[in-house]
Every structure is written in structure tokens, then in C-alpha cells.
């Protein structure tokens, strides 16, 4: 049985379609990523799955329970961490954790093993007010609070937004450890580089999934000819490649430009010499493997 099963769910706000006939399944123990920018409908989807909202059309089940009719039972079995770390800012770290434990009719001691890893770095600040913690710390505390009742499914809505790369990396390591304990995790993120850390991902855009597969499958099905180009004058290079015959698209990617080539006769060495003739120095052109971000941009077209 799937841990989560969503069947043609739609939801609108006034006249804006937030979700359009979304369907997907998440297997038990899977780490499923919903990848897309702000406003793509990620939060709405989470709210429906955590029974905070009722879909207009379609059905969804969590642990086999219907999100509309069995919502009371679902609420006992899931953990949810909303986008803005929902903590009581004027309660201490310790008070927050025990408050959430009490809320679910359990105690911190009972399930401490599960959150130990995550909570430990916070122990020394346990008398500090949650509002005074840094972003990374708040994130850890919010995760501990969402886990304290030992949920079988964990929903994390943009847990890494606005958090620095180091804390983000830590966070994903925590998620992998949680996954080993058999918890099903659904996580959303606008950071495309985090996609490869998931077992399977759904690329979401304007309320619709463009593709649901493993990151490797998505990358593997990328059909375009993709090259990285670099020179000493990047902005001039960008302008030039944008108008270059036989190049479909050109975007900056870190210290290189990624181009998709439509002219199959063109070779990297040829392009390199053309660019050098046009006055570019330190030119580098080489084929590369696509990233999830390349795939997203291609699918979004």
C-alpha cells in the first residue's frame, strides 16, 4: 500500500488555480521531493495532505486514510513542519519541545531517541527563547517538534528556504538518517540542487507536475545536446550565444553558461574557435551532463 496516494486533486483560490489535477504516489519509507519555485502550489498541496484544507476535486489518502473523511486519524499519524517555522517565539527551546509532545499526548522522554540527533546541538540553548535562535537552529527545533510524536509520515514544507548552504547540507543529512528509521518523508524545496538528495521527485510548476520520477531518470531522459561554455568575458559571451545560429537556449550556471545546441553538425571545438575569432579569450567549450535545474528549465518551456 502506498503511504500517500493522490488522485486528480484540484484547488483554487478565488479565480486562481493553485493545483490542477495533481496525481502521485509515495511509497512507505520513501523520501519524496516536490521541487518548484514559490507560488507553484507546493504549500497548498501540503495543506491538503495534512488535512488543513479540503480539495475541490479529487481524492487523496495518507496511510490509506482519506484526507477529508478520516482527517482526525491522519492528524495523529503525521508530522508537519510548515514553511515559516511555526514555533512559539516567546517560549524557550525546551518548552516548545515539551509543548508539542504534550499536544500529541506523549512525552519528550518517550520519543527522545528519534529526535536526539537533531535536538542535541540545541541542548545547550534549551533555556533560550525560540524567537532568538538563528535560522538553522529554528529549523532544527521545528523539525524536532514535528517529530516528537513519532509520526509515520513527515511533511516538510520548504524547510531549507532562507537557510545557508551549510545548515541546508546538515538538514539533508538529518533527513537521510530519519529515512533509515522508516519514516516516509515528503519535502518541498525551491532549491533545485537539493533534488538529487531525494529518492523520487516531482517537478511542479503553476499547479501541475511536469514530471515525477527519480532524479536519475529525469536527468537520463534529458535529450538535448548540452554544453558548458566559459570565457573571460561572461556577459559578452552570454549576449553573443543568445543570438548564435544553432543554439536554442543559453543560461548562466555558476561560472559557466549552459547552452543547448540544435545544430547537430556543430562541434565544441568549432564553437570554441568561432568564439576565439570573435575576440574571446580563455574559451572553454565541453559537453556536460544535465542537472535537475537544466531539466526543469527545459520542461518549463
Amino acid at each position, binding site marked *: 500500500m502506498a503511504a500517500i496516494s493522490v488522485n486528480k486533486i484540484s484547488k483554487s483560490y478565488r479565480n486562481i488555480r493553485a493545483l490542477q489535477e495533481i496525481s502521485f504516489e509515495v511509497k512507505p519509507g520513501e523520501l519524496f521531493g516536490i521541487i518548484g519555485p514559490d507560488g507553484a502550489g507546493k504549500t497548498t498541496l501540503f*495543506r491538503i495532505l*495534512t*488535512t*488543513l*484544507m*479540503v480539495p475541490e476535486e479529487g481524492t487523496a489518502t495518507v496511510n490509506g486514510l482519506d484526507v477529508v473523511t478520516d*482527517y*482526525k486519524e491522519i*492528524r*495523529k499519524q*503525521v508530522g*508537519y*513542519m*510548515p*514553511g*515559516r*517555522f*511555526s*514555533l*512559539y*517565539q516567546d517560549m524557550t527551546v525546551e518548552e516548545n519541545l515539551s509543548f*508539542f509532545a504534550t*499536544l*500529541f*499526548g506523549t512525552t519528550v522522554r518517550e520519543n527522545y531517541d528519534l529526535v536526539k540527533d537533531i535536538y542535541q546541538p540545541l541542548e545547550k540553548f534549551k533555556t533560550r527563547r525560540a524567537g532568538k535562535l538563528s535560522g538553522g537552529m529554528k529549523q532544527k527545533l521545528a523539525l524536532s*517538534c*514535528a517529530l516528537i*510524536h513519532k509520526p509515520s509520515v513527515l511533511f516538510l514544507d520548504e524547510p531549507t528556504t532562507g537557510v545557508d548552504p551549510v545548515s541546508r547540507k546538515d538538514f539533508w543529512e538529518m533527513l537521510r538518517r530519519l529515512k533509515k528509521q522508516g519514516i516516509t518523508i515528503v519535502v518541498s524545496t525551491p532549491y533545485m540542487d537539493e533534488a538529487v538528495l531525494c529518492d523520487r521527485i516531482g517537478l511542479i510548476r503553476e499547479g501541475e507536475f511536469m514530471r515525477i520520477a527519480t532524479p536519475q531518470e529525469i536527468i537520463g531522459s534529458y535529450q538535448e545536446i548540452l554544453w558548458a561554455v566559459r570565457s573571460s568575458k561572461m556577459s559578452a559571451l552570454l549576449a553573443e550565444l543568445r543570438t548564435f545560429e544553432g543554439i536554442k537556449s543559453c543560461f548562466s550556471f555558476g561560472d559557466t553558461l549552459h547552452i543547448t545546441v540544435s545544430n547537430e553538425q556543430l562541434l565544441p571545438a568549432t564553437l570554441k574557435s568561432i568564439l576565439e575569432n570573435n575576440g574571446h579569450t580563455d574559451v572553454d567549450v565541453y559537453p556536460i551532463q544535465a542537472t535537475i535545474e537544466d531539466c526543469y528549465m527545459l520542461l518549463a518551456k
Partner: protein
Amino acid sequence: MLILFGMPIVQIILFGFAVTTEVQNIRLAVLDPSNDQATTEIIRELQANTYFGPVMYVHTTEEANKAFLKNKADIVLTFEENFQENLLHTGTASIQLLVDGTDPNMCKILVGYVSNILTTYQQKFSVSDRTKTQIIPHVKMLYNPQTKSAYNFVPGVMGLIFMLICAMMTSISIVREKETGTMEVLLVSPIKPLYIVFAKMVPYFVLSCVNLTTILLLSVYVLGVPMSGNLGLLVAISMLFILVALAIGLLISTIVDTQVAAMLVSGMILMLPVILLSGMIYTIESMPVLLQYASHMIPAKWYIVCVKKVMIEGLGFSAVFHEVIILFSMAVALLTVSIKLFKDRLQ
């Protein structure tokens, strides 16, 4: 927007009509044992005056007191026996004016009206008779012989404070959770929405009870307001009123989504009518009929009446039965509606 443009209109109308210091439709009861020409003329003069409503005749002192206590009359006029004879022969006659002193403003106005009419009559009488005569009104204030204003404002302040603490604070504390997002987590937890509501109300209920104690202690020992009635009854009624106020706060929190809105709604929409229409400052009896009806909707009005009756006038449960029933039904209705409206989902 509605608040910005609507409020001035409501306030102007409220102040313009409610806030008149004139007292109208005064209910007058008369005990007239002499029943002679002079007393009949005085009564006729009083009746001719637009401020007074129809006169109610009583025949014994007990009846007069009863009319007053049952709140059927605002003022009781008692002529002395052989009024005209005394006036003609001794040149002086006396009238006793019995008024309710708990509302000093109203009391002064009433006495003023009656004295005015008496003076006019006295002048007329003197002219026709060419002798110097004098009608002496003896004013007797019930409940508040020194016309202390504390007698009036203590019940009012109690109504106001409980409204403020309970309605405003409950609504703000719930709405704050909506704003910070903690409400989302609370809702997703298996805890019943009823518990959330309950958990939000209990602290403010306790807080209000503490406030009740302080207010009562201060009023009795510092301001010298008497505690004439049953303390237990007063406390019970206050708790009932606190419950009504809490329910209103809860209702507000289910409607609005931001703390600012909660503040505005509870502040502007609740406080002002409470101040203006509860009879705390302006006498309800002298308001236009429409506003009088509107005042029936204000829980604080009923509460203030109860406090006056129990605390100052020392009346028992039977005297406030009517008000208690109204407050009770308000509490039940408001609680039911707001708990129904309290969603266990977003939107």
C-alpha cells in the same frame, strides 16, 4: 475600509442621539393623600411637560416604594397631607421627591425638572393669592445619599474591563497564532479544536476573576461603594458576563485573520457601543427608541443593571432574574456559534 468610513458615521449618530443630557419619558409616580386643587394643578403641570411620561397614581407609601423598587417609576412624588391648606394657611407645604441615587447625573436632572415646575407653580399661586407662599421639596435619594459618582461608574467600569480583557485578549491571542503559523501545527495535531478554544479561554477567565476581586476590593474599601447585596450572587453574575465576553472574543477570532483586525474589531466595534449604549454614561431611557432597542443587544448593559441592583441596591436574585436569563442565553448562543465557526481547517 468599512471600518474607516463606517465608524465616523456610526459614532456621529450614536453621540448625536444617545449622548443627550436631557432626560425624557420620565416615569413619575404620585402619592397624593391630600388630593386637593393645588396638588391636582401641580400634577397637571408636570404632565403637561414633555419630559414626563404618563403619571402613575399610588395610594400608600408601601405601594410607592414598590413601584420604585420594581423599576416602574423613576421618581416618586409624595405630597404631604392637607397640602393646599398648609400652603394657604402657613404659607409653606412640602413635597418629598424620592429618586434613585445610583446614577447621580440622572438624579440631578430629575430633581431639577421637578423643582423647576414647582417653582413656576409656586409663583403662579403667589400671584393669584397675593401672599408669599413656599413649596419645599424634600429630596430623598435612595441607595446613594451623597450622590457619589463611584456608585455609577464602578458597575460601568466592571462591564468595560471584562469586555476589554476577555473579548480583546482572547481574540488577539488566537489570531496571533494564525499569524505566526503555530495554529497550523495545532490544527494538524490530534488535539480537538474544542480544547484549543478552551485552553485559550481559561487563562483569561482566571485573569478576569482576579480583576473582579481587585475591583470589588477597591470599590468597597477605597471608593466606599457599599456591598449591599449578596456577594456570591454578584460573583456568579460577573462570571456569567465574563463568559459572554470570552465568547465574543472567540467569535471575533474566527472572523478576522490579523491581530490588527482583531484589535480594531474588538476595540472599535465592541468598546464604543459598550461605553455609549450600556447606560454607563448616558441614560438609556432618554435615548431614541431605536437606540434603546440597540442597547438591548449589548451584554454589558444587562450586566451593569445587575451590578447596580445587587451591589448597590442590595436586591436579591429575583430582582435580576430577567437580566441573568438574558445574559445566560447570550452566553450559550455566542459560545455555540463561535465554536461552530471555529474551523479545524484553514479557509
